[in-house]
C-alpha cells in the first residue's frame, strides 16, 4: 500500500469572482504502516487537502495515486454519525462484514461496550468521536484518515483518546494520515510530520521521528519538541 500525493494547485473563486489559491504545490507520499501528520494553522487549507486526497473534490490540478481497491477508514472532525442509528448500527453500516469478535474487541478498547445500543444524540462529543474511531477501524482500512480527532476535547479526555488511537494503530499497523494543529498530538502519534504554511498551504518542513511510538515517554516527547523549536528558530533566523 502506498499513497502518493502530488497536488500542483487548488484555487477557489471568491464572491467577487477573483481566483484565490488555497493550496500551493504539495507533494509527499506515505508507506504502509506509516503515520504521516499534517500540522498547520487553522484555515491553512488542511481540510481542502484532505477532501482532495479522499476523492471528494476532483476539482484540482495534480494527481492522487492510491490503489483503487484501497479501503478507507475516516474519522471526521465532526463525528458524522447517523442520528437515527444506534452506535452498533452506525459501525455496521460502514463495515457490514465486521465480525462480532472484532467489534467486541474495538468496543472494549474504546470503552463503548455500555453504549452499543445508544443513539448518537445521547452521546457526548468524546463518546461520539470514539464511535467514529470504532467505525473507521471496523472497516479494516488500508488507509486511515484522522481529521483533528482530538479537537474540542478537554486535555484529560484528549490524552486518553490519543492513547486509544495509539493502541489501535499498534494493534493493526496501517497507512495513516493525521491532520492536526496540535504539535503534541503530532509528536506523540506521528512517524513523519509535515508542517504546513498559512494559506496557500505548502509543506515548509518535513520531520521524521525515529523513536518508536511505544518508546516515546514524556522525556522523549519534550526532547523532540525542543528539537522542533530549535529548528523553527533556525528557520526564522
Amino acid at each position, binding site marked *: 500500500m502506498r499513497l502518493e500525493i502530488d497536488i500542483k494547485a487548488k484555487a477557489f473563486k471568491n464572491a467577487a469572482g477573483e481566483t484565490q489559491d488555497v493550496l500551493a504545490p504539495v507533494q509527499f507520499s506515505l508507506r504502509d504502516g506509516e503515520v504521516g501528520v499534517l500540522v498547520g494553522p487553522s484555515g491553512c487549507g488542511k481540510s481542502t487537502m484532505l477532501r482532495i486526497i479522499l476523492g471528494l473534490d476532483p476539482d484540482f490540478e495534480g494527481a492522487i495515486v492510491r490503489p483503487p481497491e484501497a479501503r478507507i477508514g475516516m474519522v471526521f472532525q465532526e463525528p*458524522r454519525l447517523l442520528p437515527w442509528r444506534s452506535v452498533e448500527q452506525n459501525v455496521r453500516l460502514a463495515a457490514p462484514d465486521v465480525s462480532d469478535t472484532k467489534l467486541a474487541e474495538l468496543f472494549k478498547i474504546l470503552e463503548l461496550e455500555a453504549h452499543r445500543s445508544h443513539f448518537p444524540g445521547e452521546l457526548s462529543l468524546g463518546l461520539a468521536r470514539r464511535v467514529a474511531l470504532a467505525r473507521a477501524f471496523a472497516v479494516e482500512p488500508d488507509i486511515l484518515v484522522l481529521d483533528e480527532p482530538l479537537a474540542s476535547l478537554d486535555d484529560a479526555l484528549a490524552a486518553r483518546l490519543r492513547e486509544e488511537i495509539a493502541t489501535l494503530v499498534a494493534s493493526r499497523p496501517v497507512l495513516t494520515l493525521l491532520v492536526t494543529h496540535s504539535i503534541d498530538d503530532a509528536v506523540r502519534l506521528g512517524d513523519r510530520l509535515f508542517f504546513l504554511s498559512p494559506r496557500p498551504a505548502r509543506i515548509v518542513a518535513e520531520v521524521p521521528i525515529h523513536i518508536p511510538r511505544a518508546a516515546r515517554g514524556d522525556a522523549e516527547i519534550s526532547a523532540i519538541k525542543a528539537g522542533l523549536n530549535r529548528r523553527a528558530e533556525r528557520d526564522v533566523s
Partner: protein
Amino acid sequence: MLRLVSFALFLATWWIAALFVGGPKLPSPTAVLNVMLAEAASGALFLHLGATLARVILAFVLAMSLGSAIGYLMGRNRLADKLGDPWLILLLNLPALVVIVLAYIWAGLTEAAAIAAIAINKLPTAVVTLREGTRALDSALDEMATVFAIPRWRAFRHVVLPQLAPYIAAAARSGLSLVWKIVLVAELLGRPNGVGFEIGVAFQLFDTPRLLAYSLTFAAVVLVIETTLVQPFEARTTRWRPRAA
C-alpha cells in the same frame, strides 16, 4: 379523553342548533344516524365508501411515488429543477376543478381520468415538499457514505431516506387531506358511485340527512386512517429524535 369531550360538545351544539333551526335544513344527529344505519344495512354506504377509498388509495400512491421521485430529482439536479420549476408553479396554482374537468373532457368520464386528475392535483405539493427535503440533505453524511464506499442503494436506504422520512410524512399528511377533498369533487362531476356521487344526488334532492350521513361517515373514515396510519408512521420516522419536554 379530551377528544371525547370535544366530540360530545360538538354533538350537543349540533343538537341544540337543530332544535332551533329544525326542519329539513339541519336535521338532528339522530335523524342523520338513522339514515346512516339504513344505508349501511342496504350495503350502499359500504359500496360508495369503498369506491371512494379505492380512488383515494390509488391516486395517493400514484401522486406520492411520482411526486417523491420528481421532487428528489429536482432537489439533487439543478437542470431538472430549472426545467421542472415553471410546470410546478403552474400545477400548484391550477384550480383542482380545471384539472378534473379537462381530464374528463380529454379522457372521457372514466376511472383512469378521475384517478389521474386527483393525482395531478396532489402531485405538485409532494414534489415541493420532497424537493425541500432533498435540498436540506446533510452533505456531510453523503461524504461519509462516499468515503466509506457504502454502496449506492444501501446509502440511499440508510443515509438519505431517513433524512427524507419527515418530509415524506409531511407530504403524506398534507397530501392525504388534499386528496380527501378533491376525490369528492371528481366523483360528483363524473363518477357513477362513491361518496361524492351520493352527495351530488343528495344535493339535487335537497336531502340534508343523507348528505350529512355520507359526509360524516366519510370524515370518520378519514379520522381513523389519520390516527391509525399516518400519525404512527410520522412518529416512527422521528423516534430517534430527543423528545421535546
